[in-house]
């Protein structure tokens, strides 16, 4: 029998243990990410079907008015600045929502887009516009929340029911999402038959785009939801860390599961609903960005969530730039660019993850 006397002298000698408080390392990482994203945003203002010189961009920004007569101002302030802002905030929201869903379901393959949550939100908005006749953002944004919340509940319930047994796989959640998406797609096409005018609205909402007339007005309307959602997510970070150890371990550490789940649901609903209302149904951001962030910062959510927000904004804007350049003078909506790049990356994640074993 091996008797291990506690080496308390080691403990009191203060052997090097990484501090558990938010570290300078973490702050540096965030700062670095912010710098990169700032560069991407600047590029977004300058690049497009017409490339503008930096001085022209700066001048337009400083002049502050679209109607100062210069074409550059019209482009920069009227088009590129709004879409950059929308991309940054919407992408950040989707990335954080993805991280939260992944944390709650302990499933690295979870994504609001793949799971059909964004489809639910966008369908709800199309319903609001075409069936109920609401045209203002303040009106239909509530439908977006309802759609996002309902979609999340349905998919996660199915996924959890499928995963109840010990050897079941988290991939069931993705399939549940595929089923829900297919179902919603069918409902949508039925809807389109009834109201052909909704086809235009549907086209935007179903693909995910930073333009399409949503504009900064909608962004201002949903801004409170975005802010509240983000703040709540940061508060929620430690619960997510506990959940990562399993339901039993989380409860053994004193968490109440039901309030924790409800808070997660509220956060996802707010963030996804707001993001969808602004940029339509966008997939892969919620899936990929948490993985990238985790690869940089590790699994601790107090750094993961802010980092995901920054990277999510940057990735969305970057994809938008690509969409503007690749088929100029036409544009590819962000959703298509992300689908084309995102799918192979998703495959990579599936191949790498040990949970893809079943």
């Amino acid at each position: 029998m091996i008797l291990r006397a506690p080496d308390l002298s080691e403990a009191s000698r203060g052997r090097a243990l990484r501090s558990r408080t938010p570290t300078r390392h973490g702050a540096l990482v965030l700062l670095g990410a912010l710098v990169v994203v700032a560069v991407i945003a600047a590029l977004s203002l300058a690049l497009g079907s017409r490339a503008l010189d930096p001085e022209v961009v700066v001048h337009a920004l400083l002049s502050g008015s679209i109607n100062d007569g210069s074409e550059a101002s019209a482009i920069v302030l009227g088009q590129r600045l709004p879409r950059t802002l929308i991309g940054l905030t919407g992408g950040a929201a989707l990335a954080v929502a993805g991280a939260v869903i992944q944390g709650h379901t302990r499933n690295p393959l979870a994504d609001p887009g793949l799971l059909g949550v964004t489809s639910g939100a966008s369908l709800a908005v199309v319903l609001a516009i075409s069936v109920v006749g609401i045209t203002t953002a303040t009106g239909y944004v509530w439908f977006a929340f309802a759609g996002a919340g309902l979609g999340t509940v349905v998919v996660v319930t199915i996924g959890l029911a499928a995963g109840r047994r010990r050897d079941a796989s988290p991939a069931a959640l993705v399939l549940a999402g595929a089923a829900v998406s297919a179902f919603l797609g069918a409902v949508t096409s039925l809807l389109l038959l009834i109201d052909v005018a909704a086809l235009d609205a549907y086209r935007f909402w179903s693909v995910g785009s930073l333009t399409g007339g949503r504009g900064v007005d909608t962004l201002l309307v949903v801004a409170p939801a975005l802010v509240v959602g983000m703040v709540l997510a940061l508060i929620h970070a430690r619960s997510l860390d506990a959940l990562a150890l399993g339901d039993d371990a989380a409860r053994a550490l004193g968490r109440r599961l039901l309030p924790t789940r409800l808070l997660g649901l509220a956060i996802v609903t707010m963030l996804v609903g707001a993001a969808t209302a602004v940029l339509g149904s966008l997939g892969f951001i919620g899936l990929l960005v948490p993985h990238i962030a985790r690869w940089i910062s590790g699994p601790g959510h107090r750094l993961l969530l802010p980092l995901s927000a920054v990277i999510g904004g940057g990735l969305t804007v970057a994809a938008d730039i690509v969409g503007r350049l690749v088929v100029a003078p036409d544009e590819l909506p962000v959703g298509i660019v992300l689908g084309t790049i995102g799918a192979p990356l998703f495959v990579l994640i599936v191949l790498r993850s040990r949970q893809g074993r079943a």
Partner: protein
Amino acid sequence: MNALFDLDDISVRYGDHTAVDGVSLQLRRDRITAIIGPNGCGKSTLLRAVARLQAPSVGRVTLDDQDVSNIPPRVYARRVAVLPQAPTAPESLTVADLVARGRDPHRRWWDGWSQADEDAVRESLAQTGLMDLAERPLESLSGGQRQRAWIALALAQRTDALLLDEPTTYLDIAHQLDVLDTVQNLHHERGLTVIMVLHDLSLAARYADEIVAIRDGRVVAAGNAHEVMTPDVLREVFDVDCRVLLDDDTGRPLVVPGVSLIGRKMTGPDRSTPEATHVR
């Protein structure tokens, strides 16, 4: 009062299936208690009921005379630590990060990381011999080391009691001994009350002061190792004819399985009464 936990006529039912059937039991403090029984007998369910992970359908569990369902989860987590079966953790989590989670019951979301937290983590790592491995990712550790890390997490909670659900089931024999030695040392040094579900009869006999034998959701026998590890009890609980020898080194019973009795007629005490051979 010597009993830390008092189980008063506990039953746990899932739909038609009764996992735990009218168990009344006292689990003594300052002891290592092992719960043994065949697969599906309800031993894990019983432990989960004590751990407050499973609400009993009937009856109540008390901790120091207080009904556990009335104790808020965070308060309970400061008094009882639980190591669940086959625990999972995110891939790149380091040992120290895992152990740090054990401080959650002592911190609200606005609390920063205090010196008390730091000391608790250090001490837990030292007591489980993991100081050198503190910054390594969990997945790079052996099975036994990983279990020790989870035990360190439980230690960081600074509780009086530690509940372990099959802590050795997936480990090689060397790692099994490693884990159980650690648990035993902690019991001696910190006076931890340990209650664990074990699969291996000889290990249970060797490490536990008290043993509870469960069959079909009922207690067949409870007492110290010599009282419970008898051929009669083992026959009734496990459907096996065994010989029980004495291990000279440890002074504890050593179980040598003989003939399987599956499918043959059972002889033995009447099993319709729940506490057939309640030996004290």
